[in-house]
């Protein structure tokens, strides 16, 4: 019988530890598939960060290094400067990238570091049980904004892609969502484009994934997908923020 669907070689044969309905796993899968399809799996070095995916170096079958909280872009800079001919990516959550690692992401983009950042925005801190993130929506209840995020007290959500798109060093930035099949297909194309930008040595590339956290949102998986669409996308519009006309 012909095999029509199989596990990608980009992932090791190990069950994910992610919660049911969490879209981290799908993001892993499309990154891994893309590495295989592009034939770059053996030429790629990934950087795990701190968050629910802290140990995804145990899942991706390429070479992997685990970085301190927020520092993945700096670690990736070090790796890339040693191996300029290899593909280097980071995988970071929104607490990791937009809060504690704000300086690292901003300056690696400003330097035009030839790395690819996979940025997972689930509007919350997952790993440490649901605290407010810089990306938490106004009114969103978290363990540290128990009455809903109030702009007067806790400021406004941060639109990272739009912010980074203002920097000349950032050549390709796209925001995608993991809420339905069509959007996941678009997300996979964005992953491929980001790697292609790196292959050409054009500069910094980033794909922002709107992702679910059913556990800390306190929502069922399907309800989470709906909330992503109805609440997150209006704040975080999908699309290409930089490099729309880029031919790669």
């Amino acid at each position, binding site marked *: 019988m012909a095999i029509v669907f199989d596990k990608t070689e980009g992932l*090791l044969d190990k069950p994910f530890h992610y919660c049911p309905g969490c879209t981290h796993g799908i993001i892993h899968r499309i990154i891994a598939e893309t590495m295989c399809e592009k034939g770059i*799996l*053996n*030429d*790629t*070095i990934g*950087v*795990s960060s701190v968050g629910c995916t*802290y*140990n995804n*170096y*145990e899942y*991706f*079958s*390429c*070479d*992997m*290094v*685990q*970085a*301190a909280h927020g*520092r993945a872009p*700096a*670690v*990736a*800079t*070090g*790796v*890339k*400067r*040693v*191996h300029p001919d*290899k*593909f280097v990516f980071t995988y970071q959550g929104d607490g990791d990238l937009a809060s504690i690692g704000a*300086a*690292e992401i*901003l*300056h690696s983009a400003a*330097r035009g570091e030839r790395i690819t950042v996979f940025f997972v925005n689930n509007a919350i801190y997952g790993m440490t049980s649901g605290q407010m993130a810089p990306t938490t929506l106004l009114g969103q209840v978290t363990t540290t904004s128990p009455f809903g995020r109030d702009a007067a007290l806790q400021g406004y959500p941060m639109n990272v892609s739009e912010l980074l798109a203002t920097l000349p060093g950032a050549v390709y930035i796209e925001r995608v969502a993991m809420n339905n099949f069509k959007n996941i297909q678009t997300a996979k194309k964005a992953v491929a484009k980001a790697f292609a930008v790196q292959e050409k040595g054009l500069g910094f590339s980033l794909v922002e994934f709107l992702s679910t956290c059913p556990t800390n949102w306190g929502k069922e998986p399907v309800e989470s997908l709906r909330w992503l669409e109805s609440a997150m996308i209006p704040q975080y519009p999908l699309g290409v923020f930089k490099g729309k006309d880029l031919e790669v």
Partner: protein
Amino acid sequence: MAKKVLMKGNEVIAEAAIRAGCRHYFGYPITPQTEIMHYMAKRMVEVGGAFVQAESEVSAINMVYGAASAGARALTSSSSPGISLKQEGISYIAGAELPAVVVNIVRAGPGLGGIQTSQGDYFQATKGGGHGDYKNIVVAPASIQELYELTVEAFNLADRYRMLVMILGDGTLGQMMEPVLFRESEPTEDTDKSWALTGRGDRTEHNTVTSIYIEPDDLERKNNDLQIKYARVAEAETRYESTDVEDAEIVITSFGTCSRICKNVIRQAAELGIKVGMVRPITLWPFPSSEIARAASLPSVKAFLDVELNAGQMVEDVRLAVNGQKPVYFLGRMGGNMPTQKEILDRIVAIHDGEAK
């Protein structure tokens, strides 16, 4: 051919690193070590290496972490406030067992402190500095020639043990000029770096670098392995200079540039008929405890005088080594000041005459 040149300490560090095969430097400006960066900014281009001015010391040390995990000989340098920021990365480098070299050209603290010379970071350098049970090899050169040789050696030690080696200098060492004799070629070692991240290539297994071990038993095993390695390093790599200890009445302990002032005092004391010896630790970790203990057990040795540019930090290790066998006195200056030879000599005379407190 070996050649002798007159150079500033900071520039010697940079040149020695290049000679040792370092092609990746990451730094953030801070006095009194900035000449290292300036030198590297030019030289790395000449030798085809990478120089990155990082956005902070936090980023610089994490770039070193990345470059080291990718198999390179990587260097960062800073001075005290910047080294405080690097402690996160230093702990991760220890946890992930990566080879790396960090230079601290110490200035006076605490806080922003001052930009003058100090040895106030002895505790931070030798007792951990960051979180967790770990050690760094810490070398403390006293001259520019030694600074050159220990910088090259630092890269070899780092690779040999997959450890962070800290070069602990001070403002004086970084800023002063002395002749330095460069060897024709450097003694580099072939160390196995098959663990490094290079892209899998033909490997069947992927390589990973991490410092996290979620299971307590795994983490304890990891920590035990680290401690075994540190014991091995202490056994093989403890370095010191021991001068005239055999027939000394008073033994000075002092490191780095401060020990040079002490050396002159030894001669002056001899003119007064007081026999003074000195143990100068070259590695601050591992610490030459056994040599100090041996000196303490000599019947001729009546007392120790520890001299430092701080409020008394290494003196705690000296006291542990002496273990109550003989009295240990301390003389320190702070804030960027150095003790004069006369200050030290007066103290020696007082100890000799039984009048020291």
